[in-house]
């Protein structure tokens, strides 16, 4: 092995410490392949460098945040030796915290705990009560070997000689007088057992990136000479080391040789699988699915996590695909809805897509009318191509408010979309008063107690929460809410078997060759009748004395325009709804266009 595969330049500790650079190379290197990083147990890393190099991270299956702070490096003729302090930060409500020193508990219950942890570099001193051990990194200057070692007490124990009394006033009459009785343990943290998870992920990362098997050794000593962490009588110190490569000069670490790294994260079969994850994106007509999708894709593309999209539109012309295409591979399944008429069309489309560009994720954007339950059923047949992901439903808060769903209840497709969702995006949060929006959120929660509900404006959420939500369910080895077995409600099951035409939904496409202005468009929308749910398309818009191509979006009474993609030549409008009056629209269009056109 050679460190050059990790750090393709000579080590030069004279210009500054190299062990943080090696650690960066390990952590960043493994995250270039996100799937690999997750299979080693990494669940997020945050660098922090306000003072000195430091990192915080999560390692499955533990829920705690780990911290590493670079302390010091010294060099010898042929090697360099860096030390890092290792921290464990349980969540403030975690029971584990009860075994930490009282000072740690006090910090954790303070208001700035998470912020301090995030900026560990600047707060290493304050957070010292969470420091449970030390990680040492040694490397040959010629790159021929690397060694990682963890030193931590088996249990970090502090005995309180005087005891810690319950503060006066806080104690009830019959309650115990002592938080910690005299001579009792103030803290008793299984330091090694916690840190070994972090260490195993680190050493596993090194093994993967260096493509070498480590020589793992474990030994124990009496507590180190008294400095702070080792003081007050802790247990024996355990030293676990993993060495890579041949180290003739460095004597082999003492201790018993182990066959493999203890504490290593065992990845689930789905984490090892190379199949892409398929997410299903639903949402009623005009709720903002495509906007949300475009933002999501931008997030993913920015992280080089390429995704493919299958779009299915209820309408003859694929506008959504046109809007999304320049950023991503899109397969459009036009005309009809994937959940009923095109169940079989999905398979060849998916095959085509994956053969073209094997993405990490596939997002299936259904029509606004699709019932995700039906889609999920057909997805079970696609297990050879994709792994199941999340069902994400975008909800138009404004439409829900106007429709009075918060008070009168909701039904039909809207209800089943929300009920079947793992994640509900409560979109257009900015269009409602705070109180009204909270009513909507409460209604959503009542429909689906297990889903993750995220308020959004213009489809913006912290997209990383989607992955985290799925990973949390998977790490807990259970299915996300949409996949949990449930008894089908008879009416729903029957409704789902029908087509959307049964419910009266229909779509009409109107070519729009002549330019129109906004008022003409509004007249056309009015003419379509009260059953209109959604209209969209591309028109040449008369605006400020000129003509600009524009995308028209209409939903829940709101009409919006945005700049049209440059290479789209077709001009049309699609109307979707119940009992539409296409003829009136056409008539209005003719009159309106003529009336509004200054050229005519």
């Amino acid at each position, binding site marked *: 092995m050679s460190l050059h595969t990790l750090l393709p330049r000579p080590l030069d500790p004279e210009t500054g410490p190299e062990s943080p650079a090696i650690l960066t190379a390990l952590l960043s290197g493994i995250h270039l392949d996100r799937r690999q990083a997750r299979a080693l147990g990494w669940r997020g890393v945050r660098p922090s460098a306000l003072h000195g190099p430091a990192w915080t991270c999560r390692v499955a299956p533990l829920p705690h945040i780990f911290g590493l702070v670079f302390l010091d490096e010294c060099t010898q003729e042929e090697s360099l030796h860096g030390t890092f302090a290792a921290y464990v930060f349980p969540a403030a409500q975690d029971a584990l915290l009860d075994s930490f020193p009282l000072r740690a508990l006090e910090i954790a219950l303070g208001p700035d705990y998470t912020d301090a942890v995030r900026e560990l570099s600047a707060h290493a001193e304050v957070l010292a009560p969470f420091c449970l051990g030390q990680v040492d990194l040694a490397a040959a200057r010629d790159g021929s070997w690397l060694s990682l070692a963890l030193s931590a007490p088996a249990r970090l124990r502090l005995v309180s000689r005087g005891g810690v009394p319950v503060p006066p006033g806080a104690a009830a009459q019959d309650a115990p007088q002592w938080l910690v009785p005299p001579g009792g343990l103030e803290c008793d943290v299984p330091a090694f057992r916690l840190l070994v998870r972090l260490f195993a992920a680190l050493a596993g990362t090194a093994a993967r990136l260096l493509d070498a098997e480590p020589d793992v050794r474990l030994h124990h000593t009496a507590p180190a000479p008294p400095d702070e962490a080792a003081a007050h009588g802790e247990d024996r110190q355990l030293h676990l080391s993993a060495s890579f490569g041949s180290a003739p000069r460095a004597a082999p670490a003492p201790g018993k040789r182990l066959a493999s790294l203890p504490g290593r994260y065992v990845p689930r079969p789905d984490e090892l699988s190379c199949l892409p994850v398929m997410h299903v994106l639903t949402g009623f007509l005009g709720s903002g699915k495509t906007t949300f999708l475009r933002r999501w894709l931008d997030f993913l593309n920015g992280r080089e996590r390429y995704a493919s999209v299958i779009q299915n539109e209820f309408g003859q012309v694929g506008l959504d695909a046109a809007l999304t295409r320049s950023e991503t591979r899109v397969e459009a399944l036009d005309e009809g809805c994937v959940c009923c008429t095109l169940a079989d069309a999905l398979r060849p489309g998916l095959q085509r897509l994956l053969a073209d560009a094997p993405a990490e994720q596939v997002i299936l954007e259904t029509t606004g009318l699709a019932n995700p339950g039906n889609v999920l059923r057909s997805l079970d047949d696609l297990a050879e191509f994709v792994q199941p992901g999340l069902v994400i439903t975008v909800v138009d808060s404004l439409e829900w408010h106007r429709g009075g769903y918060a008070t009168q209840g909701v039904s039909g497709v809207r209800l089943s979309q929300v009920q079947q969702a793992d994640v509900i995006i409560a979109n257009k949060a900015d269009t409602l008063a705070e109180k009204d929006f909270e009513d909507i959120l409460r209604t959503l929660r009542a429909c689906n107690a297990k889903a993750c509900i995220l308020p959004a404006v213009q489809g*913006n959420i912290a997209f990383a929460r989607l992955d985290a939500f799925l990973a949390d369910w998977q790490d807990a080895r259970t299915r996300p809410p949409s996949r949990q077995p449930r008894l089908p409600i008879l009416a729903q099951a029957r409704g789902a078997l029908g087509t959307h035409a049964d419910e009266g939904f229909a779509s009409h496409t109107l070519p729009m060759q002549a330019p129109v202005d906004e008022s003409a468009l509004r007249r056309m929308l009015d003419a379509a009748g009260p059953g209109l749910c959604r209209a969209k398309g591309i028109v040449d818009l008369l605006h400020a004395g000129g003509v600009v191509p524009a995308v028209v979006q209409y939903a829940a009474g709101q009409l919006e325009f945005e700049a049209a993609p440059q290479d789209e030549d077709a001009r049309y409008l699609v109307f979707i709804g119940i009992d539409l009056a296409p003829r009136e629209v056409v008539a209005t269009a003719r009159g309106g266009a003529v009336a509004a056109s200054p050229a005519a």
Partner: protein
Amino acid sequence: MNRREFVKGAALGVGMGAIGAMGVYSYSPMRRAFLKDVKRGTADIGVCKAVRITNISETSWFDNGVFMQDVTGAGGLLVDQYTFNWAPFGNGKGVGKGSYAEGIKQIKPLLPNKLEEAWAIAQEKSVHADNAGGFSCLVEIEDMDGNVTKYLFDTGWNYVWMDTCYKREGIDTMLANNEIKAMIQTHEHMDHFWGLPAVTRYNPNIHIYTPNSFYPEGKQYIKDCGHVGKVTEVPKGLHKIQDGVALYGFDCPIIFRVFGEISMYCNVKDVGLVSITGCCHQGIILFADTAYKELAYEKDQFYGLYGGLHISPFDDWDPKYDDLVIGLKKWDLQKVGCNHCTGLITAQKFVDAGYPVVKGSARFRSKTTNYLGNGDVIKFPS
């Protein structure tokens, strides 16, 4: 007064006074008066008067879908960029089956002067040559005396596209007239580096700065482009190049088998720190933290930012923070010109969140006005 006795007493007193002060003050709580509360960086790189950046091209490739198809087709993000069979190093064997040696053989005799012919060969032998664009900008530093020093920041990818862009902005003449002091090659990625002949054709003597972690192919390519000038390899850490301007070498592994990126910090007098990045693969968090830790800058103000902005090479363990807008909030930036790998929606989010984003003109194939697009100019201070 007896002078002799006075001196004796004074000599005795100095020692007593100093030792006494040591004893009384050194371990008292009052000593904190001299201790800094935050261990801030104090590296002083001097000051300059103004910074002006001309975006020559920020469009690395024109169709993300096509690009993604190449990446996944060749085997993913860890594949060596020289083996993709991307232009100009195509060998005609298809995606993922190329090599630097085979690719350069076809075009080397034509470099750097017959770029159009070389690119025509590349178009024939490579995958999706016409999708290639490039990242390059011109940085002009005005020093305190009003003299302007010009630096070229990266060289783009597509020979023909870059040549057109350079001509559009007059870079060709500047290069030929030796007006550009040096070229800063931020990292080895194809969209920042492979357009090098479009620079060496006009000035083969130009001084080039690169990270000290270029792979052998990259080092060879500099030579193969006919470059005969000085090459400075910037190691990790701070590297001052003139008053008020320093490069900073970051160690970080990057996709397509590239390692290390350099960024530029400019300390503008009475204004604050202006940072210029290529892609910021080290992550904007580390980038900003490092400036805070290492540098002393005017008014302690992290003033401006230009370039592509990757947030972090990692997922954040707290997903709600995995967002560039949140990541930059605490720095209170006064002026941002973003483009390239920032992401269209991220740029939109910046605007939505009220960030001081300088709008562009969306010309020359730049996609949005939220990007400081091709041909646009940003000045610090305005």
